[in-house]
């Protein structure tokens, strides 16, 4: 069979692509999608509306249209909907001020496909996320998914920033060219980014599930756009999905292009830490103002850098497998000393930001022991306290000996124990993020 050179193949391929792109269609359609509404998603209206209008992208079946409009107290305000083609008008009873939840279910007139969805708007009040439907449970623990996102940020962000700020300078100070080999760092970061991307995806769905209502079968066909657009969780999911994809692309690029590895991994680490802002944005502190939000983000960053740095330190030997034993030992000692120099600042930032957030979220000192939120907070602080005790042992006992030239190889086990303690503390932080603060 005759073959072609690379240039001819590319010219042919390009010509085919251009020809294919010239086949321009005019339009396409899909099942009944809510395009606009009055009031619209997330809107604040001054006075209670006497009707709700929903506009779909295609005609819906009048007799099967279902719309519910609930007050903050859960009272139904919607009367029977009137359908005219693709427009559904719902007369409303009068209700109080507050955030209203709209839940709808439509059947497309052309293909009979069922869609449903929910959104919220406010009457003289800021709308909050649509309220969950009665009797609808969450099939997966959201705390687990938040915890996996914390771990992902620590592995992709903390470990890669550790590599850029600690390992790289340590290697250069020891007089060797280039950074460490990077295989383990790339593997850890990839696991972290993939974990966080998927946990964010499922966390969004788990959060949306009770809002939409109905069973799992109904949820699979639920329209999700309003929840994505009108909630902070949805906005954070949108932002973090694209950002995590970019992080994964940077990590893969670092794997495939060793010459640019350090720059690509540094960028991936920085971007991963930036993504963590979405976790604060979708959490409780957002309701307390900008300072509280920034404090929560600083708290999360400090934790991610601490945990990620420790993981990178524990796995450093695997990262530099191509070097000789004495070289690995010297690099590990140098990294330990450098990390121990910045760790106290991280712990101080973690503690200060944590205290500020606690003061901002808790209404009184007594609520620490009288609310579920307070009790979980105490458990979390206790776990961190044990981890800090272990960190102090490393800082004041192991590090001086290493600085004096003693072997630091034996410290890896206690460093690993510190990682597990911090992972437990992060699990409690995840529980805290899903626990309503006391009022």
């Amino acid at each position, binding site marked *: 069979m005759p073959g072609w050179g690379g240039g001819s193949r590319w010219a042919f391929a390009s010509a*085919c692509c251009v020809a294919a792109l010239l086949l321009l269609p005019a339009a396409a359609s899909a099942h009944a999608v809510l395009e606009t509404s009055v009031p619209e998603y997330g809107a604040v209206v001054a006075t209670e509306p006497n009707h709700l209008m929903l506009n779909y992208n295609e005609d819906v079946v009048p007799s099967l249209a279902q719309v519910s409009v609930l007050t903050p107290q859960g009272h139904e305000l919607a009367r029977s909907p009137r359908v005219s083609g693709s427009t559904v008008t719902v007369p409303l009873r009068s209700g109080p001020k507050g955030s209203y939840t709209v839940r709808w279910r439509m059947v497309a007139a052309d293909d009979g496909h069922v869609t449903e969805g929910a959104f919220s708007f406010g009457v003289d009040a800021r709308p909050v996320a649509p309220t969950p439907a009665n009797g609808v449970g969450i099939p997966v623990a959201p705390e687990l998914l938040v915890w996996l996102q914390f771990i992902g940020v620590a592995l992709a962000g903390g470990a890669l920033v550790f590599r850029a700020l600690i390992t790289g300078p340590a290697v250069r100070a020891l007089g060797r060219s280039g950074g460490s080999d990077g295989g383990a760092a790339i593997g850890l970061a990839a696991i972290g980014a993939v974990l966080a991307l998927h946990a964010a995806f499922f966390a969004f769905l788990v959060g949306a599930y009770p809002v939409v209502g109905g069973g799992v079968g109904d949820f699979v066909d*639920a329209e999700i756009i309003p929840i994505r657009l009108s909630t902070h969780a949805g906005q954070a999911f949108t932002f973090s999905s694209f950002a995590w994809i970019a992080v994964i692309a940077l990590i893969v690029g670092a794997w495939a292009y060793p010459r640019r590895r350090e720059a690509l991994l540094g960028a991936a680490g920085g971007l991963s830490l930036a993504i963590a802002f979405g976790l604060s944005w979708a959490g409780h502190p957002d309701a307390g103002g900008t300072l509280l939000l920034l404090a929560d983000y600083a708290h999360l960053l400090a934790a991610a850098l601490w945990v990620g740095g420790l993981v990178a330190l524990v796995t450093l030997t695997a990262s530099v497998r191509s070097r000789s034993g004495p070289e690995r030992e010297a690099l590990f000692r140098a990294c330990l000393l450098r990390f121990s120099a910045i760790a106290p600042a991280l712990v101080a930032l973690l503690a200060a930001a944590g205290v500020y957030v606690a003061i901002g979220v808790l209404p009184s000192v007594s609520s620490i022991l009288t609310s579920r939120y307070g009790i979980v907070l105490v458990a979390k602080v206790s776990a961190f306290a044990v981890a800090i005790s272990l960190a102090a042992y490393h800082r004041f006992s192991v590090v001086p000996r290493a600085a004096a030239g003693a072997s630091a190889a034996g410290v890896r086990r206690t460093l690993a124990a510190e990682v597990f303690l911090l992972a437990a503390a992060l699990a409690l932080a995840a529980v805290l993020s899903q626990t309503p603060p006391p009022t």
Partner: protein
Amino acid sequence: MILPQIQIARGHWLLGALFLAIILDEYLPLIGRDGRPARSRSPLIGWALMIGGAGAWATVVFADVVHDMLLHFLWGDLLLAAGALELARRRGVYERPWLDYVLPLAILGCGALFIVHVEIDPEGQGAHWHLAMGLLLLVGGLLELLRLRWHRASSIPLGLLPLAAFALAVIAIPVAAAS
């Protein structure tokens, strides 16, 4: 932001054209400097698969219904993983014999997901088109697997025809939907 249908259609054209480019680059017979048939080492297909994966994840984010989110998330993962492995192999940083099967298996997996998509939403827009496209991918992936398994020395790209037909179908489906 809600993507208008025309934007979704344009996305299909772009993805179809991209797919056409990468399979032509991958499967058109290439003659090496020694005059013998050679396999493309271009990193294009790796990056194209990664971009396809990112596009599938974008569809996850902008999907209007949950089942589209779930399906495209699987699709995105499959393409991202295949893209990363292909890129690493072509750049020479990770080479294993089984990596030869990554691309045909990814094509096969995408075909299976097309079929699942139709099964979930049998009355949806263009179901018959999706079914045909899924079958084309399944046939293309299977033929390439067979070629690798039993005719490794052959340079005849058995899967090229159904895969090119798939690319043209991706481009043409919005035309059919609009008519």
